[in-house]
């Protein structure tokens, strides 16, 4: 344990810019949900109606949690947000523990620390303590915003404790994963898999008789039934799991060599396949994993949206206030809902396009572009290779999102035509996505150091304008800067070619402008 205290202080220093954003993200999620739920269902009658409409909806239960939570308004908040905020907190813990243990070991940074007078277990101890402190902060903040928005104190303490507990479980799980795998990415993959399993198990359990939920840390948290029964003992289950996982991790740590894992990394190909012989082949190879992940993720999210499309009519009939949020009002409820969710999916999909384009900049700053550009590869071909993946990938991600939504909605209303229809709706946003991506390209060409910040500012701006224009009363001129404001909101509005063509041409022009900047500047710094 020698030196763990010093290490912890050093880790806190390294996290001082990143960690606050995670804490803020989790807190805001709970704050928004608590405010919104209490506004929408301010009377016991409203809550009773909600129980009736949601309680019987399998898709909603699978996405959220056990219906018993709907017995009180605080429970309703937990029902809606706990699973999602658990994912955020779990990821925070995964990165906190992973970054300071395996990632450092892999990069060789930890070797310096190890050669100083620091005990074998000090790093892991410090990293777990760091995660514990972060989870404590999450718990306190959640307690503060729930009590602050008027929810009962006892339930709020339990809510905060349960969420912090879920965080600690995933910190401990990461501690095991980083012993098993030799590289951080594989460890993250394993923890993400556990997280996915935790979500699916509780979904299956909540839809069924509840047994399977007991295999999931998220399930343990929800089954405290905070604000309803205020059960404390599920926290003991968490504590047992945490203790067991940490003990296993420490035992494995004592047994393995520095830098090694328990699983040897698999060997790959000795020669390149025919596909890996050009800049485009390389860009595809580098980005295909991310593309598949994004397409699958948005397909599932689309399916989740689509699966409740049919019940939205009944839901709005029960809660007329909700209709205000839908562009078509009460008249075209389903189409309005499908359009709004398709645009939300497209906004999320924009992140893929931007990440894919920024990949070019990442290759440049990491020095990996240098050997490529020292071959007979021109700057144009190199940039284009990443942009082709960004553009074609964006189309695929949007199509997958639309297909998921159309398929799920089509299944509930027995209409096979919904899938292609929603694919078309989603692809209508492709020019907008490309335009935002092209802004990233322009920045890479002319303001490379600011490119990442500029690109994400653009994404954030589009999201805020699209989703909150009405509630924040954003002035019209400010809204018109977003390409999404110029895309007809299908299926409510008809898709027309003119705006889409203009957006696409603009995107091409910006990308060309970005290349003009790239070809005349120094590369690699």
């Amino acid at each position: 344990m020698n030196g763990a205290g010093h290490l912890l202080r050093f880790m806190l220093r390294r996290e001082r810019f990143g960690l606050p954003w995670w804490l803020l993200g989790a807190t805001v999620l709970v704050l928004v949900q608590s405010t919104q739920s209490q506004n929408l269902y301010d009377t016991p009658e409203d809550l009773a109606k909600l129980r009736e409409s949601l309680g019987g909806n399998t898709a909603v239960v699978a996405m959220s949690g056990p219906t018993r939570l709907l017995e009180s308004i605080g429970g309703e908040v937990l029902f809606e947000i706990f699973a999602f905020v658990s994912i955020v907190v779990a990821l925070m813990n995964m990165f906190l523990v992973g970054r300071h243990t395996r990632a450092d070991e892999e990069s060789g940074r930890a070797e310096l620390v190890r050669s100083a007078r620091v005990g074998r277990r000090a790093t892991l101890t410090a990293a777990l303590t760091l995660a514990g402190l972060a989870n404590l902060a999450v718990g306190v903040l959640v307690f503060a915003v729930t009590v602050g928005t008027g929810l009962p104190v006892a339930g709020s303490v339990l809510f905060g404790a349960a969420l912090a507990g879920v965080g600690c479980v995933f910190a401990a799980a990461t501690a095991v994963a980083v012993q098993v795998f030799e590289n951080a990415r594989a460890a993250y993959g394993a923890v993400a898999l556990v997280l996915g399993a935790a979500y699916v198990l509780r979904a299956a359990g909540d839809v069924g008789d509840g047994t399977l939920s007991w295999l999931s840390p998220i399930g343990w948290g929800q089954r405290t039934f905070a604000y309803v029964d205020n059960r404390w003992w599920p926290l003991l289950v968490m504590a047992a799991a945490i203790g067991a996982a940490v003990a296993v991790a420490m035992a494995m740590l004592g047994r393995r060599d520095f830098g090694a894992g328990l699983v040897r990394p698999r060997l790959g190909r000795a020669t390149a396949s025919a596909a890996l012989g050009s800049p485009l082949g390389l860009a595809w190879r580098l980005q295909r994993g991310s593309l598949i992940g994004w397409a699958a993720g948005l397909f599932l999210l689309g399916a989740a949206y689509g699966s409740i499309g049919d019940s939205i009519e009944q839901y709005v009939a029960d809660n007329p206030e909700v209709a205000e949020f839908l562009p078509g009002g009460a008249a075209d409820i389903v189409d309005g809902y499908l359009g709004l969710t398709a645009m939300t999916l497209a906004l999320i999909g924009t992140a893929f396009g931007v990440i894919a384009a920024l990949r070019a900049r990442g290759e440049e700053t990491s020095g990996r572009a240098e050997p490529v550009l020292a071959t007979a590869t021109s700057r144009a071909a190199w940039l284009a290779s990443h942009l082709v993946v960004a553009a074609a990938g964006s189309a695929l991600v949007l199509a997958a999102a639309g297909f998921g939504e159309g398929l799920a909605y089509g299944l509930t209303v027995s209409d096979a035509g919904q899938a292609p229809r929603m694919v078309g709706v989603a692809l209508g946003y492709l020019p907008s996505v490309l335009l935002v991506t092209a802004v990233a390209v322009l920045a890479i060409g002319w303001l490379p150091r600011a490119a990442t910040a500029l690109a994400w500012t653009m994404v954030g701006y589009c999201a805020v304008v699209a989703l909150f224009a009405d509630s924040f009363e954003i002035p019209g001129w400010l809204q018109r800067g977003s390409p999404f404001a110029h895309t007809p909101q299908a299926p409510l509005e008809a898709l027309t070619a003119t705006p889409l063509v203009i957006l696409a041409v603009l995107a091409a022009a910006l990308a060309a402008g970005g290349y003009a900047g790239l070809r005349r500047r120094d590369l690699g710094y």
Partner: protein
Amino acid sequence: MHADNGAAIEIAGLTKSYGRAKALDGLDLTVTSGQVHGFLGPNGSGKTTTIRVLLGLLRADAGAVRMLGGDPWRDAVALHRRLAYVPGDVNLWPNITGGEVIDLLGRMRGGLDRRRRDELLERFDLDPRKKSRTYSKGNRQKVALVAALASDAELLLLDEPTSGLDPLMEAQFQQCVQQVKREGRTVLLSSHILAEVEALCDRVSIIRLGRTVESGTLTELRHLTRTSIAVETAQRLDGMDGLPGVHDLVLEDHHARFDVETAQLDAVMRRLAPLGVRSLTSTPPTLEELFLRHYGDEQAVAR
């Protein structure tokens, strides 16, 4: 195959700044075709910057740069078909194996010799099936070396290619470069390992703070340094300390040890001969000394 003027690289008065920091300040460099040219200088002296200008990755602020008869900035793609490059800091894609990287870079250059590739893998004892993230610095460097050496490029730009290799691999590397030289190809070898440069290079340029301070064949450069002499004579050695160009003299009746400036070697020998030389050993100057002479004062300044 080579440009008529016999120069693969010609740089005159090259200047390059990163923002306000001046990395190159009027650098001159001429590399003759078919030669191995050593490019020496301490860390931060501008070797990598020069090579990046040659690769067309950086644009020169001022000065004239020609490579293989073309302009490195304008004709980058055409020139790159004729050269191979090993970066000083080899960064590879973590999920791609070493073998795949070698093939990929080779194909993007315009093809590689598969037999030579496999031979080099064997030589450098490199497992091509490992993912790049699992390679050490030395092994990443080997990947870049195999990719470059397996090509038939007429010019090799090697930026401190052996800084991560162990002595055994260093020896393999030297054999490979000798082979490249026998094939009549040109090599620009940036290094701060003097033994390597002495073993391989026909000519050497020494740079410091972005400026060339010395350039020539090893023989020429040795003229600028001192030879160590140990001598025993029949008669007593008197009056040695007054001789011009003699330094660090240790005198003991019939024995003497001293360093002599190469330019004064002849005069000193004439002075010794009449005394009846019984034995004499002379040690030629090393680049090490040359280096120290040029950077000794810089270190003093740095302190």
